[in-house]
């Protein structure tokens, strides 16, 4: 059975990936390391790749190969303008959601959105 933080991360991983790539272009393993530094540990590290693939297909990010003197080229990902726009939208949605949950947990009065 997955714990709650794993489930929460699953639902927001695409947003987290875009946020990380906004800061700097990264390759797959680097992304996992950055996430871990924020305390976001993935159950399986490879689960970022299907998501990166989806973000690529939607044009939110792009990939490019960086040649290495030590071995084969490494694939890096960077944020695209379309991805930056999407990230802003997701961030707004997340803020609204997080505020609502926080209010609920603190037992504050609900605001009528209808």
């Amino acid at each position, binding site marked *: 059975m997955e714990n709650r933080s794993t489930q929460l991360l699953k639902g927001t991983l695409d947003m987290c990936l875009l946020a990380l790539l906004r800061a700097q272009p990264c*390759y*797959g*393993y680097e992304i*996992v390391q950055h996430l871990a530094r924020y305390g976001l540990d993935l*159950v*399986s*590290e*490879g*689960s970022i*790749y*299907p*998501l990166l*693939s*989806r973000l690529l*297909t939607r044009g939110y990010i792009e*990939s490019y*190969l960086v040649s290495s003197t030590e*071995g*084969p*080229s*490494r*694939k890096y990902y960077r944020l695209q303008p379309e991805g930056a726009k999407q990230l802003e939208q997701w961030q707004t949605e997340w803020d609204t959601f997080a505020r609502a949950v926080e209010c609920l947990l603190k037992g504050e009065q609900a605001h009528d959105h209808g």
Partner: protein
Amino acid sequence: MTMVDQETQQQIANLVNACTGYWELLGIPPQRRKEMRLELEQHVEQAVRDGKSLQAVVGPNALAFAESWARETPRQFPRGGTVVLRWLIFDWLAYALLFLLIIALFDHLILRSPSFSLTLAHVVAFAFIGVYTLLQAWSGFLSPRVRSREYRLRVAFGIYGGISLLVILLLSLTHFSWNLVLVRWEWPVTLLLIFGAAVLFGVKVWAGRSEGQKPLR
């Protein structure tokens, strides 16, 4: 950071090969497949050097991981049709032909028979060879769970043995005439088949080498 031993390297290679083969079957274009393969390989190697397991990267079910990645990747059409055809010709047919030639040569050289008869039993044996080559290709998905290559092969053989026994048991309940001759040919045809098999294996080796030599970009 730890060094990657030979057994782990083999484990990684088997896993990556199994995933790549599966992506090929699903019709992921070669260039994209090569990139995915390289990414997976580099990630797993780095993770292992950092003291993590293969399961930490692909999860407990490597096939599900390969499937989820493929689902998010654009595919080319026909979906894996050419791959299935290639598997049929280069794997199944090549090994079935080899098997056929061994028994045909046994008939000609040891039993001194100028002709060879292909029976229904031989055809069933070809089907067994097909199942075996498929299982061999897919055994790499066991890599994250079964570290030793020897144990992986044992598990694959176990599955194969189980399937074979079940099929044999089912077939024994039927009343087919297993010695029914489907085709009969004389020894010159066997010689022609030897030539055909040599060409097929030559093309198989050449195709494998040229695939491995293509640059990433």
